[in-house]
């Protein structure tokens, strides 16, 4: 199986490292400019394609790691050419686009896997397993926090362009929207606000979102682009009528690094990390690979990705209007 990777930022390179762990062959990379794709191509002994459609000529699977606003056009093109697709989250910036992408892939008979990688992080996967075993009973409240610093410029600047990334509520917080829905079920309503919408020149951003689930559970989501680099912190607290689970990446970090780390050394975007044998991105790509080659059901489906987009878009709408947004079943 031949893979081509579109986008050579953090996700493109991380996914490339993960594909190496499968039996697939990385054929090449395509990026905004051929020069930027060269280092990765060299590293993996692969080609640099000049454009996306010429890459499609030579691959069976495309892995789309480009800025979010480019996802859907690329998916539509790849599907029309009969190629399987792995796509970074968020799938799309609107529900309409997300649905169009899913329908196109369904009609073309190609796989569409969206990289909601949080489901593959061992701490989040284990919590889900404990919940599914009934260890904490019926879920009543879910508190999720994901915090880092604002993506740096110039590499990360598309993150800050809301028309391209959707901003903090979409780009960062969709992770936890998907996770909340995974553990607590379908979402009925969304209420959200973010700092940058209230304080237009704020140097930091922070989003708060309340989800009401159809089964009565309440999720509280917080997302920060407000901490000093290289901070990346996640926390969760999931409470049921028979117990609770809590997690704090800082409290459970097996290594506390008290050496000096200059700002310049911090990566362009904050990244979560805890030393584990197989990194979550690799686990994710392997599972998608097995889905494509062996037809195994992955833990996250394209429909899940559409639902996550729906929640994220509702959050943006709520933050804009100040009202509660009630979701229509998809």
């Amino acid at each position, binding site marked *: 199986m031949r893979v081509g990777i579109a986008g050579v930022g953090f996700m493109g390179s991380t996914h490339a490292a993960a594909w190496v762990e499968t039996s697939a062959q990385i054929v090449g990379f395509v990026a905004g400019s051929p020069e930027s794709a060269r280092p990765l191509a060299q590293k993996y002994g692969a080609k640099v394609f000049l454009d996306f459609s010429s890459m499609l000529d030579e691959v069976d699977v495309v892995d789309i790691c480009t800025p979010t606003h480019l996802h859907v056009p690329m998916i539509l093109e790849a599907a029309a050419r009969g190629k399987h697709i792995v796509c970074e989250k968020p799938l799309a910036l609107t529900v309409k686009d997300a649905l169009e992408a899913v329908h196109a892939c369904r009609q073309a008979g190609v796989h569409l896997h969206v990289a909601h990688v949080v489901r593959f992080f061992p701490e989040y996967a284990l919590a889900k397993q404990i919940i599914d075993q009934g260890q904490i009973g019926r879920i*009543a409240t879910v508190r999720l926090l994901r915090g880092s610093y604002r993506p740096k410029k110039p590499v990360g600047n598309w993150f800050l362009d809301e028309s391209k990334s959707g901003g903090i509520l979409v780009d960062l917080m969709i992770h936890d929207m998907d996770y909340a829905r995974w553990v607590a079920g379908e979402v009925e309503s969304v209420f959200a606000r973010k700092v940058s919408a209230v304080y237009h020149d704020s140097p*930091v951003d922070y989003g708060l979102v309340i989800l009401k689930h159809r089964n009565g*559970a309440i999720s509280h989501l*917080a997302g920060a682009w407000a901490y000093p680099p290289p901070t990346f912190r996640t926390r969760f607290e999931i409470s049921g009528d028979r117990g*609770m689970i809590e997690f704090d990446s800082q409290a459970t970090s097996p290594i506390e690094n008290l050496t000096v780390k200059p700002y310049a050394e911090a990566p362009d975007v904050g990244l979560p990390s805890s030393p584990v044998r197989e990194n979550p991105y690799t686990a994710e790509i392997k599972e998608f690979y097995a889905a494509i080659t062996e037809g195994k059901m992955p833990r996250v489906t394209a429909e899940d990705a559409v639902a996550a987009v729906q929640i994220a878009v509702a959050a943006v709408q709520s933050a804009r209007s*100040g*009202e509660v947004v009630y979701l229509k079943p998809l």
Partner: protein
Amino acid sequence: MSLKIGILSFAHLHAEAYIQNLRAIDGVEVIGLADDDEQRAEHFARLFGVHRFRTYEELLDAHPEGVIICSENSRHLPLVKMAAEAGAHVLCEKPLATTVQDAEEIVRICRQAGVLLMTAFPMRFSTPLLEVKARLDAGELGHVYCFNSSNQGELPKKHRAWFVDRALAGGGAITDHTVHLVDVMRWYLGSEVSEVYAVANRIFHADEVEVETGGVVWVTFENGVFATIDCSWSRPPYWPSWGGLSFEMVTSRGAVWVDAFRQNLTVFTHTLQRPYWAFWGSDPNQAMIEDFVQAIRDQRPPRVSGEDGLRAVEVVEAAYQSVSNGQPVRLHRRQL
């Protein structure tokens, strides 16, 4: 000459702390307690070795300079009225009342009678919270944008059955655990709440109580700051403490995490067979009670007012309104 203080009702468990706080202050005489529940009166009078007055009137006839009211939430108003008429200064347990109307009445009565009225918001005296307030005022932390806060606890039913009785408590988790953080934020910001949104459920202890046990209250301030308050009774009975109060305050300089009850030892004992937290920080109740006493001595307003109590009750009432109509509610602040 010593300052005489009486305690009206031991319905709220905080009375047990306050009586000891009073006794730790030089020149304060606890003249006794009165309680309409005879058994309770007898029990606590014996436990603390304090005089038991047969009625509230009898206690007030002994002319205390001040009283602490720790009745059920819905019974604050009649006791405040009696105390104010007797000329006693009042420290009233939170929430000030179960309705805005009662809270307003409490403030008005004390004002007319010329007695001091303090709402028991001990978090204003928490040393970690005072430290943050000082840094904020000094400009070290930049401008505040929002708060992500929680005041979660265990089901309070094991302490007193009335805490989960709507008629006596006013409601469940929202009534119990919204007011402290609303007050802290008003204090930090010097701004008033303009809008409230809230969600609630009854999944924790669903078979034991009829009030809401889980909830999040969202408040927006006139100055634009927004905040969430998780007020859930989500802590299981085997949690290492009763619960806690903490918040993340996001500012133009980043964020500050504050936990009012983190100054703990984690203790493991054969007796309990599970870890518990032993608090070694400074007791905020002690500082609050001292302020009440000092306010009486100096004839100055206490550091928390009755109006502060009323503003928090307004948020609680709006939160219930929002829960029932599913949309944010504009807050109409009472003019005093």
